[in-house]
């Protein structure tokens, strides 16, 4: 009954299967990018869109729409989705908890609090003249302020669960402060703030795209290169230590990388819900593995695919009214995740 095991053959077969999924996702990403570029509230023939894309110096409405509106949005959506997924994946591995997402440590609440300060109080009005990136800067300060606090606390506590609770409490704290500001704010300002709170990939400037690409890309590359110790973390901290991983250093890296990615996206696009929580699951299920060497690039691609799709729906469903992206991600994503999990016997 003892079957002869050929580990080499077996791992190659697993690898090949995963490569196929990977290329499928890559093709899907590119396809959705093209669709998002071509579809919009004003429709143009595809050839014209491509010619505008290939000749950036061309004058005219179409060139403006492609280069200033659609292309930045397509790129921001792809990167935003990828980074949120990577961030969620990191934290799920670290906490060994499947219901953890990138915002579990209070990153989005911190961003929201500071954005509420500039959007809801008169404090922000004067600053608007100083910089057009006011909400972005506020979101960034909020997100990284919370991140620094959490990381500082993390170096003191040993237990992951404690840190999780600290992050949650931080979220509640910021949330209550935001509520107070909302209660005191003028009616007209509240709608804009609420919409910001549901996230959107519209209105990205090229400078933001470059920042996203360089900082986020660097972080994702670093995460991929550290997929091996990340795999050791699948077994838990103590096992990881017994395999020779420097736990203290690596824990800080995980928390900082995950928060930095989530903070980067949140400060520019607002808190985009659900992607960071759900995409790692979808990736695990579609690759049939928890191996982070597969999952880091895999979750990034899947994050890009899912977010692009959601952004397409958000823009086109009730065209010309544009829906907030968080509404779409959760509305379509939650049933998919439930379905996938139930199919696998709810074993996550």
């Amino acid at each position: 009954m003892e079957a002869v095991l050929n580990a080499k053959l077996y791992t190659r077969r697993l690898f090949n299967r995963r490569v196929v999924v990977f290329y499928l996702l890559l093709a899907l990403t590119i396809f959705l990018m093209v669709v998002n570029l071509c579809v919009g509230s004003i429709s143009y023939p595809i050839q014209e869109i491509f010619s505008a894309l290939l000749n950036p110096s061309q004058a005219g409405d179409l060139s403006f729409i492609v280069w200033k509106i659609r292309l930045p949005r397509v790129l921001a959506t792809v990167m935003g989705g990828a980074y949120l997924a990577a961030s969620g994946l990191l934290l799920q591995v670290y906490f060994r908890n499947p219901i953890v997402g990138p915002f579990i440590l209070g990153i989005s609440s911190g961003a929201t609090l500071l954005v509420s300060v500039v959007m809801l109080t008169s404090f922000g009005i004067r600053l608007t003249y100083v910089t057009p990136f006011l909400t972005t800067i506020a979101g960034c300060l909020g997100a990284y302020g919370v991140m620094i606090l959490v990381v500082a606390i993390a170096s003191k506590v040993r237990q992951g669960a404690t840190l999780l609770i600290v992050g949650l409490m931080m979220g509640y704290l910021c949330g209550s402060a935001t509520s107070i500001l909302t209660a005191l704010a003028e009616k007209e300002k509240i709608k804009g703030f609420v919409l910001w709170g549901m996230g959107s990939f519209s209105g990205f400037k090229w400078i933001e795209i470059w920042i996203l690409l360089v900082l986020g890309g660097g972080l994702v590359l670093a995460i991929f290169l550290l997929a091996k110790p990340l795999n050791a973390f699948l077994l838990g901290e103590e096992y990881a230590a017994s395999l020779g991983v420097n736990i203290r250093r690596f824990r800080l890296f995980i928390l900082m990388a995950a928060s930095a990615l989530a903070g980067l996206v949140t400060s520019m696009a607002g808190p985009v819900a659900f992607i960071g929580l759900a995409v790692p699951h979808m990736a695990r299920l579609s690759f049939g593995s928890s191996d982070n060497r597969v999952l880091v690039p895999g979750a990034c691609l899947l994050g890009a695919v899912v977010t692009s799709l959601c952004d397409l729906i958000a823009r086109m469903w009730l065209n010309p009214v544009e829906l907030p992206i968080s509404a779409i991600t959760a509305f379509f994503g939650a049933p998919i995740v439930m379905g996938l999990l139930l199919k696998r016997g709810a074993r996550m």
Partner: protein
Amino acid sequence: MTAPPLLELRNLTVGYRAPVVADLSLSFGRGQFVALLGANGSGKTTLLRTISRHIKPLSGEALINGQNVNDIKPSALAKILSVVLTDRSSVPMLRALEFVALGRHPHSDFLGRLKDRDLHMVESALEAVRATDLADRFVDELSDGERQKIVLARALAQEPTLMLLDEPTAHLDLKHRLEILAILRGLCHSRELSVLAAVHDVESASKIADLALTIKKGKLAGFGQPEAILTPSAVRELYDCPQANFDSALGGLEIATDGQAGRAFVLAGTDKGALIFRLLAKHGYALSAGFFRPSDLDAHVALALGAKILTLESLNNETSANSDRLKQLFDEALLELDRCDLLAVAKGISSGEPNFPVAADLSERLVLEAQKRNLPIIKLGEANDLSPLIEFLGRLKAERSSQAA
């Protein structure tokens, strides 16, 4: 110069802030199965975690191959030492083969790519725990026993010379417990691997371990061959459990009774009595039993259960010197019988045991005496059929409860 021992503890004191176990000094070499025994909370896990350098020693040092573990680089230590923890949380969506391959971490390259040699070690680890057929399964879908094998294989794939295991057989049923321990012992001897395993099960430890290490009240209680260390009194003391009687010959643990239900005399011998003794003890009877040769297994079980036993040394042939001794023994038996509330007779005892006529004769006479005293006498049938005794005890219980009502 001889090579340093694989593991050496020098005046090692372990604990978190306050010492849990103090001043441990011992050493052992390769190819040893060392059972670490002690009651819950005695510091077994703390000791293991100190050796695996998860916590720092309070004083003293732990040396592996002559080097202080805290001076060895973590990545180098991981090639010598692997651990199996009590942690039972599982990893979702990971196949057993991939799980075992995680053990190659200290040996594989920067990106964790598996070379031929790594794959070979994974194969051989799965073979060693007899789990090659599980390779394709997801670890979170395995049963406890299967999972533990995979956990063990992962630790093996690390190619350690020393493995620390914290209760590797907890939660497992008898079959898997024995299988895991047998696998571990086999590996110790075939791979020159040493295992230091915290175990709860004194019985298996005494049978399987090459060395036993016992901790009691924050100190090393004993270290050496289990045959020398695990004496009945030492085991009773180790677990602070006066009722537990460890029989070193059988390697079995019996629970003595307080005799609240009364006392029963059992006529057994030639290995027929063990089940009868245990059944009566479980029902709260103190035991008197006879008539055995000292080498009889029944005598061991009865003693471990706290019974008063009557043994006949080498009294097989009737000489005049022996007849005095026989008379004395029978008088003793009568005294015991006077204290008893019932007499249970194992199959074949009263009808005469051909190779032990003296005992049969004594037994027959004792049955007659019991009849005179109007004691309930329960005669048992085929070897393991305890039903007459079970029925009797059941009836008695029912009577008592109706009286109480």
